[in-house]
């Protein structure tokens, strides 16, 4: 029997979920994360930055500067610094099927755990080195096995870990430049239902899983024209994750088994988009600092998602899901107020424009106009140590959209609550 063109497409989440523990051990001391909401980018690479609207391109705020602007690293005051942070991420998406319909669904997403860890060292007056480990892209979305969009996606988990050794050079007292090499590890797993029904009442299912690695870079310039003003410009390269030996497990009724060869392997390519980022900060007075960032993210690199199966049949053909993402922009603003020598408080917000077109909105990517509101606090119990906390609330504006290749659509509404915890340690 020829069951035409079923199986899989889809993989493109947002928001990171991590197997806790182990990787944190690599960690060095304090914190940082970056949560950017367009696509599946996570923007939680520093607790202090998170507290003030996730700005940091034009603001030197401890070791996490290694991620936010490698050029600013050489301006860090302490001789050695370490930062470690984690941001448990709770996200929800609600869905209401295209009207008229009484069908509603919502995700039951596992807790995501983006983390970041950095160590930095000033080698001499001019040169600083450092290494960071962070999780810039990720997603964990679970719609359940029986929901109406199950033939697109049931659950998906995408994880990436970037390791970035970095060198920064202070050209003069106003200008610093820096570049980091990025080693990226990525892992994806997803499942979706297959539209074949068994006499036991069970639908078919495809589970895909794979891991890979790739290289990229992160470069930046930090410039202080006057003592109160700091400007930054950075470029992060697109990192294309190519997977050759992904494992596909296809469960179908017995009489269709030969149509869906399993186990099978697949190759796929998922680009993690780069960005150009411009930012600045200004010290209004001794206590008060404000700043802003503008990010332009190259989401257009994510044009389509193709799963190329090693063993094809008339039923199991390679799957090609157009995504047609477009570049998006993020505007961020934040401020910090020094209450006393032990306490700094922060607040900020951002506006993140959608990267997914209305006709190509797939439920694995909860994309929307997103508004982020943040609060942060640092406590400095002793001169060498900061304890950082942050809270980010992301509100996605409701979208009425369709994934037109699959004729599946409705209204989606997204939100996320992300508390963050970190410490920063300095040695002079």
């Amino acid at each position, binding site marked *: *029997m020829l069951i035409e063109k079923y199986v899989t497409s889809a993989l493109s989440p947002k928001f990171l979920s991590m197997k806790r523990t182990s990787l944190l051990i690599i960690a060095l001391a304090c914190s940082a994360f970056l949560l950017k909401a367009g696509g599946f980018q996570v923007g939680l690479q520093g607790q202090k930055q998170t507290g003030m609207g996730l700005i940091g391109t034009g603001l030197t705020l401890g070791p996490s500067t290694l991620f936010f602007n490698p050029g600013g690293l050489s301006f860090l005051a302490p001789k050695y610094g370490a930062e470690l942070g984690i941001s448990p991420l709770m996200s929800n998406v609600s869905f209401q099927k295209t009207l008229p319909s009484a069908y509603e669904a919502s995700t039951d997403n596992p807790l995501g755990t983006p983390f970041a860890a950095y160590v930095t060292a000033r080698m001499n007056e001019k040169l600083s080195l450092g290494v960071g480990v962070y999780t810039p892209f990720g997603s964990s979305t679970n719609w359940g096995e029986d929901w109406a969009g199950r*033939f697109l996606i049931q659950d998906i988990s995408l994880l990436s870990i970037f390791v970035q050794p970095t060198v920064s050079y202070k050209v003069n007292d106003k200008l610093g430049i820096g570049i980091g090499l990025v080693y990226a590890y990525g892992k994806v797993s997803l499942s979706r239902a297959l539209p074949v029904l068994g006499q036991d009442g069970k639908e078919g299912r495809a589970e895909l899983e794979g891991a890979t690695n790739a290289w990229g870079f992160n470069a930046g310039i930090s410039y202080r024209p006057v003592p109160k003003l700091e400007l930054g410009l950075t470029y992060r390269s697109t990192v294309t994750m190519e997977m050759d030996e992904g494992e596909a497990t296809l469960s179908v009724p017995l009489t269709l088994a030969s149509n869906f060869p399993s186990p099978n392997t697949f190759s796929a390519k998922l680009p993690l988009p780069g960005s150009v980022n411009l930012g600045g900060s200004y010290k209004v007075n001794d206590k008060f600092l404000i700043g802003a960032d503008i990010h332009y993210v190259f989401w257009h690199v994510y044009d389509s998602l193709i799963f190329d199966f090693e063993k094809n049949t008339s039923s199991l053909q390679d799957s090609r899901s157009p995504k047609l993402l477009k570049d998006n922009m993020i505007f961020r603003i934040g401020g910090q107020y020094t209450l006393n020598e032990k306490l700094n408080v922060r607040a900020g917000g951002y506006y993140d424009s959608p990267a997914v077109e209305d006709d190509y909105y797939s439920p694995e990517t909860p994309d929307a106009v997103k508004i982020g509101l943040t609060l942060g606090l640092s406590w400095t119990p002793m001169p060498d140590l900061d304890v950082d906390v942050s*809270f980010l609330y992301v509100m996605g504006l409701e979208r009425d959209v369709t994934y037109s290749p699959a004729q599946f659509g409705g209204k989606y509404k997204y939100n996320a609550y992300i508390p963050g915890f970190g410490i920063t340690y300095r040695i002079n």
Partner: protein
Amino acid sequence: MRTTYFSALFGLLFILVSCEPKMEEFKADPGSADLSKYIALGSGMTAGFADGELYKSMQAFSLGNILATQFSQAGGGSFKQPLMLDDLGFGQRRVLGIATDCQGVSSLAPIAMPGTPNPGNFLPVGAQGPYQNMGVPGSKLLHILAPGLGVLNPYFGRFSSNPTTASIIGDASAQNPTFFSLWSVEDAIWFAKDGGYNVADSLTPVPQFTAYLNNILMAMMANGAKGVLANIPDIMSLPYFTTVPYNSLVLTEQAKVDLLNAAYGPYGLSFSLGANPWVIQDLTSPTGFRQIQAGEMLLLTLPQDSLKCGGWGTLKPIPHKYVLDAGEIAATRNAISALNAVIAEAAQSKGLAYADVNLLLKQAEQGITFDAVTLTTSFVSGGLFSLDGLHLNAKGNAIVANLFIDAINTRYGASVPRVVINDYPGIAFP
């Protein structure tokens, strides 16, 4: 103290974490229709007939019941169906299974469902009525009007208020419906499914069809009921007519080719290596047989073992009842378009909603996609039709139900919710 203030704020934000984003709830509304007493009229799919039989689990997915379930969210009342007691019905149900043919080859194919029907299926249940699903498999419009139909049609005989005197329309209109649906395909399809063979099952001529339809509508609308009409699908959309290829006589040996040419050559038939048209019965031909032509149809009921081992289509012409020839195809298709024009005109003039099932299934020939599942009119693999090739499966009924709902919403300014197509089962594989 400021730290206390901040920790309180963080605490508050943390509580929010459990909050999912809220969305405005959908509100169903009947518009200017009154769905409180809905009666379903029509043939097999309205009743829940599929896979060659009317059976209990499929009756839950009858067009009538799917619609009634959706109506219940917009003021609809209870909807009683004359349920069979099991999934065997009168015993004609087919399921997918492994069949071994006359040559000993096993393959996946529709087979008779094993088991013995519950004798209760054959007992009358009219006393437990009235029933709101008045759909009766095999009923043409004339049958809906016919008193005593229960004697001829056992599916109505079961639940008729009086098998020897009652009519479908009488039992239906006696319930004072506020809303009804009417979808019968039999006035055109019955003729074709018998290969145009049975004179008693001839195509209903337009004047009669018009009169029957008007009589039905008059009875149903006597108290101002509103409703929805649907038209008849093209036979090209039904796998019953399109699955068996006309030229699947594959000859691989020259000796066999020579034998057939020797036998049939004198009558103008010719055979060659490869695919050949089958030999069919043709009463209009002087010899009584000829080769089937491209575009003519072999029906799904044609016994495959007789082709493979019984010499049908070669030594013996395929009997007329398994063939829809060019003239019969043209007659059927002309009738379908003429009757559909009558239905459309009646919907228009009576102000009823109109569901163009013909167009929907025409689109399905190329494939229609719902929620990432693409369905076609291909037999079994298409996912839309049941194993009899004539009646939709549950998923197909759900798709037609949504078409009805769209038509009702448009015509009456209603907001009846659509169903989620993929909640309804397709064909189950062993």
